[in-house]
């Protein structure tokens, strides 16, 4: 009996040591990966909790250049039209200057001298936001604003694919597992009474490593129920955003963002050759790219007939120099300028630009 208990104790000790070892290994793996990809040991930005949107950047809204001055706008007879742009880090443009974001370039085009009306643009891009988080943020913005917009633009695609591929659930978003840990740690079972322990397990690096592994290595099959549920849930979400915008008298536009490996049109071979050297185009990331493409195409296919949907996947294929960052998703300043030009053209084609002028 004594020997049995000694063996049991030894086994337990080794099990705990192994689990701690796995956790430390995963911690190092994730921290070093973050350091290599983002240059810092953390993934994501410093954020503040928000009861509606869950979290928002501590530095607040990214400024937009070339907007008409508010004081002048108030003095003028006709108040300016307003555009709110929501999206993830590609919209926020945290790594480029304030004047080099998509909203700043768009404001420059729309407010150039001689423009019949002035337009104020707000860059509500938030790092790591996907359409789910943007919908929550939009609800907050509309509750709290005194000046509702005339047009709401969602610039989506990359983060919707990224978080679905990580969590394989239609309501996935950044940090989902950590928040679940805080909410569900308590009442699941008697084990839930030890809630600090359960919260720690849920938030562990081992679980995060598993999610990341799934994103990188486990193929997404569009015939499986989860991707189909994602497509249905995403469609419902955008339909709701259209209605929500309409409730405040605003139009809604969904822009399906471009990224390097989903482009289907011809690109200058010289540029293409240079882009082959980007780290994301390496064979290590083959499955990541494939999974992204499957989810991206699935959603684009589901949404393509919606009147508010615009597919910009090939908006950058006329480039004469590389415009993508090493991840093939984020854009350099010239890329942002190209997207802004395409957006301005789109607003003109859809008659939105002169809508406020009347017949």
């Amino acid at each position, binding site marked *: 009996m004594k020997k049995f208990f000694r063996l049991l104790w030894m086994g337990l000790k080794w099990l705990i040591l192994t689990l701690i070892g796995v956790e430390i290994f995963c911690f190092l793996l994730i921290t070093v990966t973050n350091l290599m990809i983002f240059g810092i040991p953390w993934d994501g930005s410093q954020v503040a*909790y928000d009861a*509606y949107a869950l*979290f928002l950047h501590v530095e607040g809204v990214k400024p937009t250049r070339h907007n008409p001055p508010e004081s002048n706008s108030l003095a003028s007879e006709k108040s300016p039209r307003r555009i709110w742009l929501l999206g993830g880090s590609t919209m926020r443009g945290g790594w480029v200057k304030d004047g080099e974001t998509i909203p700043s370039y768009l404001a420059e085009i729309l407010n150039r001298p001689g423009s019949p009306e002035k337009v104020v643009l707000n860059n509500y891009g938030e790092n790591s936001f996907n359409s789910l988080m943007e919908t*929550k943020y939009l609800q907050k913005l509309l509750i709290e604003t005194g000046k509702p917009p005339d047009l709401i633009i969602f610039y989506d695609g990359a983060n919707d694919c990224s978080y679905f591929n990580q969590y394989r659930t239609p309501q996935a978003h950044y940090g989902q597992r*950590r928040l679940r840990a*805080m909410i569900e740690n308590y009442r699941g079972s008697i084990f839930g009474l030890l809630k*600090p322990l359960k*919260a*720690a397990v849920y938030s562990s690096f081992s679980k995060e490593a598993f999610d990341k592994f799934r994103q990188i290595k486990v193929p997404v099959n569009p015939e499986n129920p989860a991707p189909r549920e994602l497509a249905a849930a995403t469609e419902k979400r955008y339909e709701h955003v259209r209605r929500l915008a309409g*409730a405040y008298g605003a139009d809604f536009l969904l822009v399906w963002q471009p990224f390097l490996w989903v482009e289907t049109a011809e690109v200058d071979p010289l540029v293409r050759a240079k882009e082959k050297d980007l780290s994301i185009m390496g064979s290590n990331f083959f499955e990541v790219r494939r999974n992204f493409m499957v989810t991206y195409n699935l959603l684009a296919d589901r949404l393509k007939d919606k009147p508010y949907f615009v597919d910009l996947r090939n908006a950058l294929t006329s480039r004469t120099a590389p415009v993508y960052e090493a991840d093939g998703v984020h854009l350099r300043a010239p890329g942002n300028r190209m997207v802004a030009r395409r957006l301005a053209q789109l607003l003109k084609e859809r008659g939105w630009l002169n809508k406020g002028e009347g017949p």
Partner: protein
Amino acid sequence: MHRENQPRGFSARYLGGILLTWLKRLILALLLLEIGCFILITVTNLILFGSIWKGSQVRYDPYAQFLNFKGVMPTANNPPAQEEKKAKHIWMLGGSTTRCEKVPYQQTIASFLAQQLNGPGERRSAAITNYGENTFNSVLEIKYLQKLLMENPQPPDLVIFYDGANDCIYFNEYRNPHAHYGYRRLQGPVESYRHSAFGLLKPLVAALYASFTLETYDRLSQAVAPLSRDDPALGEMGQAMQRRYDQAQRLAAAYGARFLVVWQPLIWMETGQVDSVVSKQEQQLAIMNSRFLKFKKNFTVVYQTLTTDLKDEPHFLEFQNILCSRTEPVYETDGIHLNVAGNRMVAEALARELRKRDW
């Protein structure tokens, strides 16, 4: 020989030993503190709620934050499923006073309202859904409403928010116009990740924020600081509630529904005359004890300020004195939750009001 001559205080081994001993003692003290708090909280829960847990078992929901694990509370007296399409649909949102988990589902406000509206002589049947969720206030309800409208194929004809108690409780606890149940629990892990190097150890952070020690601290420091009517946060709260309800009204309208806020009755907020025998019996309720004087005083300040701020809104329905005509006690010991007779009275008053508004 050499060792004997060396002063003990400078021996690295000696210093290391002392450090290790104190570290061990610190860890042991923290563990003991946590175990003490665990026992305190668990026993308090057992005494207060008859269960070792506080609150319901919930699951994480990205839109509403959390939802009851058991799903939506059923409603009795609704028309049969085949007739439901022709019926008018009412969604009732609120906290535990709407969900009414402590009584059989046939005796909730929603079930009694369905009985009233589906009685003989009614022109059209009404299908009522009880979307009450324990601890929900208007912040969480507006988020839940967005989710429900997004995901439900059958939109409602009328949306009712049954509010007051939880809005006052969580404002008093956090002194923040966007407060809700578990605010700090979510705020901590969300904000701490990028705040310092310690935040990087997220399993430890999660364990800390889920600890019983922190819960004990929160409970002890809850809402004892007096609240002034001039408190700026209170002014913000009134505006935030107005804007929140304005959005609920717009959202409902976007789906073709009307919106109503019912301002719920609470025993110590009543200003009407109550039968003296009943009143005498109710003086025995735990909440009427002088120990809760400060809590009730703070609560009254918030309730009255919000009532003044909201009373002119067309969707606002004040039920403060709706139960004053009672001939028997209708409140539970907390003076907030209602017994079956109370639920029936609220439902009857609500049915009268809906008929009056020609709904």
